[in-house]
């Protein structure tokens, strides 16, 4: 059950474009659908900063991600270690620096199938799935939007206090405040839209 919660950090990237209720939402969703249709693949660089009470100083992570409509996400960490996470529909593959892959399927992680479903729902702009988890409050304009996501009561709310995010054509920043006061900030830049996956990426998704 609680497994679903965690996977949100990555998926929140595309949340606003599908989950919001109201006229702005509909416009954002339409624009996103259009964007995905034009370029089903999006690549970007990210930096992640975790503020955690257990650590003396913030944890910095950077890398890049590939987001492919209908396939999933490749989350490639470049520093301080090299490790890649491939999130497919029903499995997560963790690939270490030495290339050793650790596959965990929906069978190992019961919540994983739902993560996959959530992912597909996000890409297909199926607002119903996202609204199951959050109450969404939009603000700003179509070209500079802000969203506040409040977890609905339940396990998610026990782990997460609030999510704030903003962007224009793409999501540019996500801030997650956890219930225990720790926080994660994700910044995205250098967006590259593409019509197709690269051969290496296809291989990671298990496609020929």
């Amino acid at each position, binding site marked *: 059950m609680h497994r679903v919660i965690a996977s949100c950090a990555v998926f929140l990237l595309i949340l606003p474009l599908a989950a919001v209720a109201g006229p702005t939402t509909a416009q954002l969703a339409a624009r996103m659908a259009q964007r995905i249709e034009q370029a089903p693949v999006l690549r970007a660089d990210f930096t992640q900063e975790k503020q955690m009470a257990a650590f003396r100083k913030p944890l910095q992570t950077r890398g890049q991600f590939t987001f492919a409509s209908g396939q999933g996400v490749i989350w490639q960490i470049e520093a301080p270690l090299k490790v890649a996470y491939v999130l497919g529909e029903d499995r997560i593959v963790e690939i270490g620096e030495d290339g050793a892959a650790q596959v965990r399927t929906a069978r190992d992680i019961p*919540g994983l199938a739902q993560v996959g479903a959530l992912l597909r729902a996000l890409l297909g702009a199926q607002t119903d799935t996202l609204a199951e988890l959050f109450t969404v409050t939009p603000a700003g304009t179509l070209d500079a939007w802000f969203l506040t996501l409040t977890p609905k009561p339940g396990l998610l709310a026990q782990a997460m206090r609030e999510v704030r995010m903003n962007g224009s054509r793409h999501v540019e920043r996500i801030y997650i405040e956890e219930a225990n006061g720790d926080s994660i900030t994700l910044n995205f830049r250098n967006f590259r839209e593409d019509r197709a996956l690269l051969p290496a990426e296809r291989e990671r998704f298990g496609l020929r």
Partner: protein
Amino acid sequence: MHTRQFAAIVWLALVLMAAVHVAQRFVTTTPLATDLLALLPPTEKSATAEAAVRALSEQLGNRALFLVGHADPEEARRAARGFAAGLEASGAFKRVIAAAPQLDPRTLTSLYLPHRAGLLAPGDRDALAGSTFAAENTLLRRMHQPFQTGLATDPTYDPFGFLQRWLAQLPFAQTHLTPSDGMLTVRDAQTTWVLVLAEPLGSTFAADTQARVIAAVANAESALGDGAASALLLRTGAVFYGDAARTSAEREVDMIGGGSLIGILLMMWLLFRSLRPLALSLVTVACGIVCATAAVLATHDRIHLITLVFGASLIGEAVDYAIQFFAARLDAGPLWQADQGLVRLLPGLAMALATSLIGYGALALTPFPAISQIALFAFTGLATAWLSVVLLLPLLARAPGPHDGNDVRLPQRLLCAWQDRATPRGVIALVAVLLAVSIPGWLHLTTDDDVRQLVARPATLVDQEARIRVLVGTAGGSRFFLIEGANDEEALRREEALTERLRAHVGQGLAGYTAISGFVPSAATQAAQRALLQRALPLDKVAPLLDEAGLRNTAAEAWHDMLADETTLTLRAWLETPLAQPFKHQILPTASGTALIVTLSGDDPGLDPGSLAADLPGVSAIDKTASVSALLAEYRRLATLWLPLAGLIVFAVLAGRYGFRQGAAIMLPTLAAMGIALGLYGVAGVSLTLFSMLALVLILGSGVNYAIFIIEAGARAPASFAGVLVSAATTLLAFGLLALSSMPALHQFGVLLLLGISIAVLLAPMALTLGGTRR
């Protein structure tokens, strides 16, 4: 004379007392049993195994499970909440649960955190033992991963994520259900399904509970259709099967009882053209039914519906004695003398009763509670109906009837026509040909010992249950492992030996399993794992890693304290926590220690639990379905052996009165009928079951009745022979109606009885050809 009247009055008084007793029982309580489990005898070797079977079936049986579905998830949840509220408001349920269980993560961590040194996920344990555990890399990945698949633990106390991975692999819910917006849901291609659980108030098998539950569900279901687009509903639970069994049994009691009665009245009217024989015959049948019910209620807490259904079909047989009596009266015409008439009839009636009782007596010896109850019912019913004929009718029908037998000469003419043409040699040749034709059928006879013949399961409920199982991902629970140990520790250790094997089969014939040692490893395992951590990751190796990673000093202190703490998590401590609530039925205290149940998810027939459990001490594989089938097979074989023996007993009884030759002549039509019926079964490809074997025993006992009646009276008395035909017709009508029963066991009884007795009746005149009339 006076003794006669006295006996009759005493008898009537006894029957009245029985009637009062029955009425009392039915007024104060509902002594009707619909529990399907009551049909099943104990099959397991040990009492613990039986207790385990009971614990599991109660866990599954005491609640009704619903899935409310709608294409729109929000709509599905709204509908499920409305449905649950409807059930709640009905008052038919003790509890209605629509909300997903809110397991506070803090409960989990506070339970396991103090004992974490001894708790390792299998993957971590293997890596540590094989020295392949990359401590630094694991630490870094844990710190920088973008998400976590599991419950978050504090890095100070769980820097490498051992506890997190332990918690993630706890075998909580081996289902496809996931919480969404506070409710458990599962999605298929078009529909989002939401789970609603309800615990009926009162016994699931009590008729009033069932009626309340069914009404409440129907009400709540109709409310589902009120929305924009109506929501779908799937249901399963013992209460629905129980209700379906009860209503169909009640319908069948009405149909068989009513049908038999109407048929009997019609045929008797044709024969006697007078109300008195009809009314008095019904009195004797009523006496039989009342006494039979009283006998069952005196020896059993409750009377099973299957007994009533079969009992209703018994009317057709119980009325035979009265028919013979009144047929003799009809034949005597104005010369009727009740006492002499009875004296002449008595031996034949006694023979008919004795052979029938031999058949039902054999049934009483089967280990199936419901079947032996049927036998008791039939035994008492026939005997008391017979006694009522013998004790009451001579007094109540002293005067000659208004007619004589001349109105019903047609059957006798047919019989005479048969007699004129049939020769002993011809009759034997006919039997020989009929049996020869049956031989190919015999060679194709198959057997079936499937447990499902005991249970009438309406297809719509079975379909819904199957869909729910696929959606939710649960197993039926009839296959499981039982682990016994002298104490908690031994039971847990033995269970771990089993799960070690099971783990290798997950994904290959086994979808999953739920073992208590998955939540609480044995103390030995906890100690071994703690020792492994102490060896592989001592403080002097871990402390620099933690410091370099940027963790505060408290992390190293916590690591030191963790390795030093030697307390283990005990089964008893775990049982005290709310986590254990859903699994309590898997722990059974026994006389000799502790027993644990390991349940399997997914019912793959390819998996052989027996071979997995072999050579593991204290572990046994239980397969209730297979055990019941094995028992059915064993008793089918016993019945097959008993059949010739019963034949010999019946023959001995017959030979006692009629002599060897005439006795054989009486037996022959019935034996031939059994042979032909079996041949037809083989040709039609119908499998023989225990119940068809029991039906053969009954054919043996009841089929000879008609040959007896014919030999006793047939050729010389037209009404008596017509009476034989009416007797046969009423019996066949009742068994024919029984063949329409939805209860497979009764259906099998009915079909074979109908077939066998029809042929026995058709062939009965040959007894006269071969044996001659009794002088």
